[in-house]
């Protein structure tokens, strides 16, 4: 691993651009859901954009991603194109999964989005296997698996980390600690102060970072990717963050004390990172606005595509259950 690479304004801008794309799409989706124009389960990543983007800039399209129901930020940071993504939310035949998987099961192998799962913790063992395949094939790919704080208490987490550490697999376990699992506070369910500490149980590299800090997150991600590519084994990254929109779309979030919420709002990484980009000189206000407009136009175009697309044919029901008979 290169010691202390420099965090350039260009990198910061690249992170911002990914994060802002996520952010604009999330805002758009929430608007559509509110107005009833979109009807789908939705788990907003609002608040977790920066960490996903800071991870994403280190990855190649050939690298693998395994994510969760709350995974749209991870998928976008990995580079999934908007049209098949949106069309899948719209349950259309042109969706990434032909409308059969839905938002909780987005798959897009061309951009390395291998599995999106709705079962807490279950992506970790699968990621271990993707890493094992890369190790066998020596293809230099890295597998990123992301999951929440709550997921760190389920058995699959333990089994996967132990196996990945033993076999020195090129896997990054990114725990996005947004301080809540559904409506349960972190401390109510998790017996350790920092999930990053749990890496020690596997003699795995482990780190806890501020997931809202683009640079810190970028560094941690970069070290983990470098470690994996160098064949030096997996890393557990705990990125501490917050989710502003509750668990699911429509969650009243009454379980979050007002002061707590407001304290997090004051640390919202999106305005802070925008300010940092401007301060760094990487882009002007006008350039950022132009980028927003550009992304918004892409979003509208993709939404139109999704809206205009047909629903799957009912005959699809019997397809993809099994492969073609041998």
């Amino acid at each position, binding site marked *: 691993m290169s010691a202390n690479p420099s965090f350039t304004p260009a990198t910061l801008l690249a992170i911002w651009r990914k994060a802002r794309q996520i952010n604009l799409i999330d805002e758009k989706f929430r608007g559509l859901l509110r107005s009833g124009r979109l009807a789908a389960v939705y788990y907003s990543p609002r608040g977790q954009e920066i960490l996903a983007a800071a991870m994403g800039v280190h990855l190649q399209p050939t690298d693998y991603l395994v994510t969760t129901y709350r995974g749209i930020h991870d998928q976008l940071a990995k580079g999934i194109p908007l049209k098949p993504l949106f069309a899948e939310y719209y349950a259309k035949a042109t969706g990434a999964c032909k409308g059969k998987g839905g938002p909780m099961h987005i798959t897009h192998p061309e951009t390395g989005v291998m599995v999106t799962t709705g079962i807490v913790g279950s992506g970790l063992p699968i990621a271990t296997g993707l890493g094992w395949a890369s190790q066998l094939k020596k293809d230099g790919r890295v597998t990123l698996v992301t999951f929440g704080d709550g997921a760190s*208490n389920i058995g699959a987490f333990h089994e996967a980390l132990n196996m990945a550490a033993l076999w020195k697999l090129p896997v990054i376990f990114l725990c996005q600690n947004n301080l809540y699992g559904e409506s349960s506070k972190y401390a109510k369910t998790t017996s350790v102060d920092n999930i990053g500490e749990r890496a020690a149980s596997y003699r795995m590299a482990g780190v806890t970072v501020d997931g809202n800090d683009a640079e810190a997150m970028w560094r941690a991600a970069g070290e983990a990717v470098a470690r994996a590519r160098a064949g030096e084994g997996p890393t557990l990254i705990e990125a501490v963050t917050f989710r502003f929109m509750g668990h699911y779309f429509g969650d009243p979030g009454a379980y979050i004390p007002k002061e707590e919420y407001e304290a997090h709002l004051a640390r919202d990484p999106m305005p802070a990172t925008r300010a940092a980009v401007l301060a760094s000189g990487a882009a002007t206000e006008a350039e950022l606005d132009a980028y927003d407009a550009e992304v918004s136009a892409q979003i509208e175009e993709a939404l139109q595509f999704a809206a205009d697309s047909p629903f799957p044919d009912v005959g699809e029901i019997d397809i993809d259950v099994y492969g073609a008979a041998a």
Partner: protein
Amino acid sequence: MSAPATATQAKPEVITFTEAFSRALHDAMEMDPSVIMLGEDIADEEGGGIFKVTKGLSTKFGTERVKTTPISEQAIVGAAIGASLAGMRPVAEIMLMNFITVPMDQIVNHAAKLRFMSGGQTHVPITIRTRTGAGAGTGGQHSDMLEAWFAHVAGMKVVVPSTPADAYGLLLGCIFDDDPCLFIEDQLTRTQTGPVPVKGEIIPLGKAHVAREGKDVTVVGYGRPIRDAMVLADKLAGEGISVEVVDLRTVSPMDTGTVLKSVAKTGRAVVIHEAPRSFGCGAEIAARIQEELFDQLKAPVLRVASRDVTVPFSRVLEAEYLYKASGIEAAIRRTLEKRTQK
């Protein structure tokens, strides 16, 4: 309102399934201090459960008796088993049925078997409440009806209610039963209503219920499709077709006697459930009927169930996946066409 005071003070005449589940839990905790609960987000600090079934319970009975757990389904069921061995009657919530794949070892190798393997020295009076059902657009990992797995495991009891009143009485039945019970709540019908149950009235497990008497054909099943069958029975009565509806209530151990008695009378049977057709519980019902009533049957035992595929996300496909009321009707008519053949 112009109605007299007594009327306005009268209890509402119907309750929803969700209210029925809640009341059963509440009344059980009130009736017996050994009833305790655990599950993800179930305490009031967490909003009383993602589906609000446990709302108010931790406030009333204390967070020691109503415990929010980590996302650790193996530990949830294991802790319930352990506490039950020490004399408690734990009610564990597994938020959705697809997550019950996680604690299968605890349920199947332990809860179901400890009574037998200990030669009756210990037993496991736990209730596992879970929720599921297709039709809400939640896709492949949040919709499965997996009751057939548990029905195949000796030592387990599997209960699926079809009305709020049954839900109340059967949930109490599970909690006060001395064996491990799996109680399945339907996600889709949770806001539907039905008559109010009598407080504290337990419906004992293991007895099927003739929900409607008839003479031409028996429809037998459990859960959501029973509701469709009741509506259909009304409709077909208008055409002079008399449908008997047998609601198993307890899927396993199955009350074969009640089923056979009904089919012996009608000579025809249509078996219904929401789970996919193949290797589902309906196969067992059909197999038993034809084994015992071969000479009385006037038509093959038909099954109506969902398709043998993963539950799809898109509504057009999900609707195609699900069993249909029209399918039940068609099957009834098909058994009746057979009227003259034998």
